[in-house]
C-alpha cells in the first residue's frame, strides 16, 4: 500500500513530471490534495462541469503542456473522450469508462512509471486515490 503526502504527490507530478495545469471539481477524498495546491508550481482552474474540465485539459495538452483533471468516479463515468490526447484523471475509484487505472494502494508499478507510460498513449488514464484515513 502506498501512502503519499500531497506535497510529495505534487513534487512528483509537477516538479519531476512537469504536469502544470490542473482543472476539475473537488470531492471529499481530494481534500488534502486541494489544501496542498500552490501557484508556485501549478495552475488550477475550477470548472463549472466535468466536460469543461476535460475540454480545458485537452486544450492545454494540445498547446504542448501536460494537464490533469480532478473528478470523482461518477463524473468520469459520464465523460466522453473525443480527442486522441493523453490526460491524467485523478479520481476516487476506477471507472469503467477508462481502461487504464493506477490505484495508489497498488505497489506493482510506481506512480512515476505509470504516468510516464501513459504519456505515450492517446487515451486518458486514471489515478485513484483515497484520503489516507
Amino acid at each position, binding site marked *: 500500500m502506498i501512502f503519499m503526502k500531497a506535497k510529495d504527490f505534487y513534487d512528483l507530478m509537477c516538479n519531476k513530471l512537469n504536469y502544470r*495545469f490542473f482543472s476539475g471539481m473537488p470531492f471529499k477524498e481530494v481534500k488534502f490534495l486541494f489544501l496542498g495546491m500552490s501557484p508556485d508550481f501549478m495552475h488550477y482552474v475550477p470548472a463549472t462541469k466535468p*466536460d*469543461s474540465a476535460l*475540454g*480545458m485539459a485537452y*486544450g*492545454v495538452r*494540445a*498547446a504542448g503542456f501536460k494537464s490533469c483533471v480532478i473528478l470523482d468516479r461518477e463524473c468520469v463515468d459520464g465523460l466522453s473522450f473525443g480527442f486522441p490526447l493523453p490526460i491524467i484523471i485523478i479520481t476516487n475509484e476506477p471507472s469503467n469508462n477508462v481502461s487504464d487505472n493506477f490505484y495508489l494502494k497498488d505497489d506493482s508499478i510506481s506512480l512515476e512509471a505509470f504516468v510516464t507510460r501513459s504519456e505515450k498513449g492517446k487515451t486518458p488514464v486514471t489515478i485513484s486515490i483515497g484520503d489516507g484515513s
Partner: protein
Amino acid sequence: MKSQNVIRQILKSIQDNDIVICTGEKICKEVFKYHKTGYLYLSKENALSFAIGVANGTDKKLFLLCDDNYALRNLDVFLQAASSRCSNLFVVVLITGCYDEIKYMPNIISNVSNMSGLFFSMGFIVHDYTKKLLKKDYKEIEATWTRARGPLVAFVYVEPGYSSNLPDLDLNLEKNLLEFSDFVKNKQLGTSMFIPPLPLDDNMVLLEEK
C-alpha cells in the same frame, strides 16, 4: 446578410499566425473552404472549453467561431471563458435566431432582451459587427482586433441558412489535431497580440534620455 459572406469577411480579418477553432457542422464546412494550418474543426460540445485550454497555453490570438444555438447550450462555459481572463480569446457568435436543422424554427434568443448586457455582465468585452460587415468594412474589424484584448465576444446577426452543396470535411481529426498542435507550439510564428512599444518596467528610461 448571409453567413457565408460573413465568414469569408471575418476570416479576411484574421492574421496568418492566429488560431481558429470552429464548431458546428455547417460553420466548419464553410470555414473549411478557406482552410489554413492553424484551423481546427470540432463537432463537439466542449469546443469552447478546449479553446480556453489552448488560450491558456499560448500567446497567439485564438478565434472561436460558433452559432447562437451553441452559445445558448453552453452559457456556463462562456462564463468559464470570461472568468479565465484570457486576453487572447476572441469568440465570434453568428446569430441566426433559429435552429440549423429546421430553418425558420425560432430559438429563444429573440426573447433575451439584452444579449450584449448578458455577456458584458459575465466579464466579456462585447462587440457587434453586424453594421460593419453590412458595409463590408472588414479592414476596420481587422484594425480593431489588432489592438483588442480579450476575452471578447463579437456578435454578428445573419440570415438563417448556409451555402448549399457544402463539401464534406476531408480531414481526419487526429491528423487535424496534430497539425493544429504543431502550429500552436510553433513560437517562431510569433503572435499578432498587441504588444506595447515600451517595456513595462518600473525603472523605465526613455530611449532619448539614454
